[in-house]
């Protein structure tokens, strides 16, 4: 089976001699019961029975590997794919919607979950190109399609990205001011791409992790907003809300599964399930619906990035615009410079670009975009040798960034993958933009819910941490 993960994740598949199902070397905890072990019998259906000496039979539990086990293991990563499909897919969403229907039929309103779907802007662009729609049409038609299936609210992750961008800007400036005393303050590395985070944790660990911005990705901030803020507005506990995100990338499923984003108190995740653009296409196919034929429905504006009736995005490209926002904010805060147009210089390839801000011949700020595994490599190796001259690097695992994510809809046979990507990028860029600093609703949520910027609450809800995964060495792995 071809892997859907970003290139960075694929490379960490360690073993080459054994097929994925046998490859897993994650030790599974087995609860030993006292007493003598008898025989084990295998039934025709593959289930195991333990037969004790006196003839008592007991069905044995199957060992299960969860996504969390996979994240904590330095072994393979691609074999987690089968785990992913069973734990996070459109089928899971269908299951919850079905359970809701049954609960209502039986009058168990208590058991009904509030279902929320948050859609990433890159996915809207991918679906819009597929069905020949505008971005606004796509947003309204998707809202209608999902609500007709039984979803309660449909939001837009551009809204939570406002918080990611604001926190990244502030984090950068404070790291810049600390740079003399803290050797790992700079370069700050972007944190929104889970493929990159997973790769850094599994293969580079301690010498790269301190440089990664602690700001949560838009998906995970949306998770907090939906479960904590919106849930409370609706009088629902976090575990009474089922939150699905639609993402351009399979690696986002791994991100949602991180233990950092799990609430022990309520036994629930901030994002319960992640489905990709391609999986939304599969849902439409399953229902026998062409998205273009769905009548439009007005948007849920409370957690969507709307201006008037229209959805708006951010400046700075298809991967979130982190560099663009940070460099403008930092130039103003640190050097009192108002930057209008940012000039990107293409270096080794189109996925490695540089922005330099100079004044009187002196370099004030130097930042880069580094997309795709080959460019990540050069940045990581330079950091390792303490030769990285950038203040900030917007790192993304996929070549061409997030609009080209592994979960996006494939090109039709009459065009190349590149032509499709160009159309998705053009449509994505056509959206009007807003500065996160000018957003009244964002300001209000900071004031009312987060107790202001840089408060304890905003730091705990908008930031996260990273964990080095220790390398497992196994003598059996040595091959000529």
């Amino acid at each position: 089976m071809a892997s859907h993960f970003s290139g960075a994740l694929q490379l960490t598949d360690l073993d080459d001699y054994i097929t994925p199902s046998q490859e897993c070397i994650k030790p599974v905890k087995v609860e030993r019961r006292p007493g003598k072990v008898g025989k084990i019998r295998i039934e025709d259906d593959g289930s195991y029975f333990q037969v004790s000496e006196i003839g008592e039979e007991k069905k044995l539990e199957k060992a299960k590997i969860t996504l969390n086990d996979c994240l904590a293991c330095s072994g393979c990563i691609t074999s987690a794919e089968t785990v992913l499909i069973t734990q996070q897919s459109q089928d899971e969403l269908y299951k919850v919607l079905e359970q809701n229907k049954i609960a209502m039929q039986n009058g168990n309103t208590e058991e009904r979950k509030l279902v929320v779907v948050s859609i990433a802007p890159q996915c809207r662009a991918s679906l819009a190109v597929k069905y020949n729609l505008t971005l606004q049409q796509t947003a309204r038609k998707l809202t209608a399609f999902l609500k007709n299936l039984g979803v309660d609210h449909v939001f837009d992750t551009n809204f939570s990205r406002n918080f990611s961008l604001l926190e990244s800007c502030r984090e950068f400036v404070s790291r810049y001011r600390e740079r003399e005393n803290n050797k790992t303050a700079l370069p700050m590395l972007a944190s929104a791409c889970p493929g990159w985070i997973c790769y850094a944790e599994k293969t580079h660990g301690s010498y790269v992790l301190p440089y990664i911005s602690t700001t949560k990705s838009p998906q995970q901030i949306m998770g907090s907003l939906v479960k904590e803020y919106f849930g409370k507005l609706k009088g629902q506990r976090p575990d009474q809300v089922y939150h699905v995100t639609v993402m351009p990338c399979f690696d986002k499923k791994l991100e949602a599964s991180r233990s950092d984003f799990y609430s022990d108190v309520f036994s629930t995740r901030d994002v319960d399930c992640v489905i990709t653009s391609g999986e939304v296409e599969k849902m439409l196919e399953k229902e026998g619906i062409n998205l273009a034929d769905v009548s439009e429905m007005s948007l849920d504006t409370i957690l969507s990035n709307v201006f008037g009736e229209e959805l708006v995005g951010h400046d700075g490209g298809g991967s979130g615009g982190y560099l663009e926002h940070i460099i403008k904010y930092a130039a103003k805060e640190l050097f009192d410079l108002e930057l209008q147009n940012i000039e990107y210089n293409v270096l080794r390839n189109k996925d490695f670009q540089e922005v330099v801000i100079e004044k009187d011949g002196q370099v004030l700020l130097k930042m880069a975009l580094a997309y795709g595994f080959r460019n990540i490599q050069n940045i990581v190796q330079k950091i390792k040798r303490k030769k990285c001259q950038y203040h900030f690097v917007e790192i993304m695992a996929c070549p061409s960034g997030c609009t080209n994510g592994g979960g996006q809809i494939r090109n039709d046979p009459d065009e190349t993958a590149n032509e499709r990507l160009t159309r998705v990028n053009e449509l994505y860029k056509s959206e009007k933009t807003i500065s996160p600093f000018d957003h009244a609703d964002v300001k209000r949520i900071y004031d009312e819910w987060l107790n202001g910027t840089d408060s304890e609450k905003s730091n705990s809800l908008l930031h996260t941490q990273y964990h080095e995964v220790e390398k497992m060495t196994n003598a059996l792995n040595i091959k000529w």
Partner: protein
Amino acid sequence: MPRLEEVTTLDGHIDPVWCVSWSPSGSLLATCSGDKTIRIWGKEGEKWICKTVLTDGHTRTVRYVTWSPCGRYLASASFDATVVIWSRKEGEFESIATLEGHENEVKAVTWASSGSLIATCSRDKSVWIWEVTEDEEFECASVMSSHSQDVKHVIWHPNKEILASCSYDDTIKLYKEDNDDWTCFQTLASHDSTVWKICFDQSGSRLASCSDDKTVKIWQEYLPGNEEGVVTHGTNSVWKCVCTLSGYHERAVYDINWNHVTGHLVTACGDDSIRVFGEDAESNKNEPKFSLMTVINHAHSQDVNSVSWNPKIPNLLASCSDDNQVKLWRYVE
């Protein structure tokens, strides 16, 4: 009858020797071993001696060693997941760079004819291309994950920027630069088991491969618009298997080397033997015929891992083995 005469045995390595590599001028031989060292051998008078031992480059087996086209640099690939670049100045070797990035064992490293590109391959299934910058920095230009298994070897075309790799997945892949990145443009499938090594002939229009399936195969390039009418796509040429040498080797064939002067092929085999093949006089490129010229049974007391013709003295051959020895041979017509 043609035959191979043993010239000398070079003792020094204390573990299996994995690779023998002649410098472009033919005056120096580099060898590497499970003993984690690289040895440089040269002639003093009539005697071959060990001139230098490079001991502090790698922490595990050194699997492969090769010279830059100018002969001033040496690259070594190791199971410690790194490649070390050595600079030769006045007979002394100094490590100037370590290429890091491969997940695990690096199996081979090779320099393009221009000297400005390096390719590496690893058990992590990937092939990497590195660009040599003006200030002797080495930057990753591409990572290609086309193979589904351990990549055993990688080699550049002798005069074009085309790269070839072979793998435990039984295939050979060819790559070129296309629209800002390197991509695989053809996969050659015909071997039934691991393809251990590949090499080009002097013109670059033929490729020889050797495999765990005990055969050697010859692949011919067909350019767009070829007179044979072989179908090609766009500007890419197509490579076809035109000859299979089977029934000669009793075990896996680990290495193959094409003599760029005489056209002779030499193989290193797991049956401890070295074989030399020559192309028949009436052979044509679409159906070439090769005959076994000579075989040295028990050339070594264990597996022969690598063989290489000297680039300047066409009848001089080097070999190495699991028996910790390096040997030099003279091919006599």
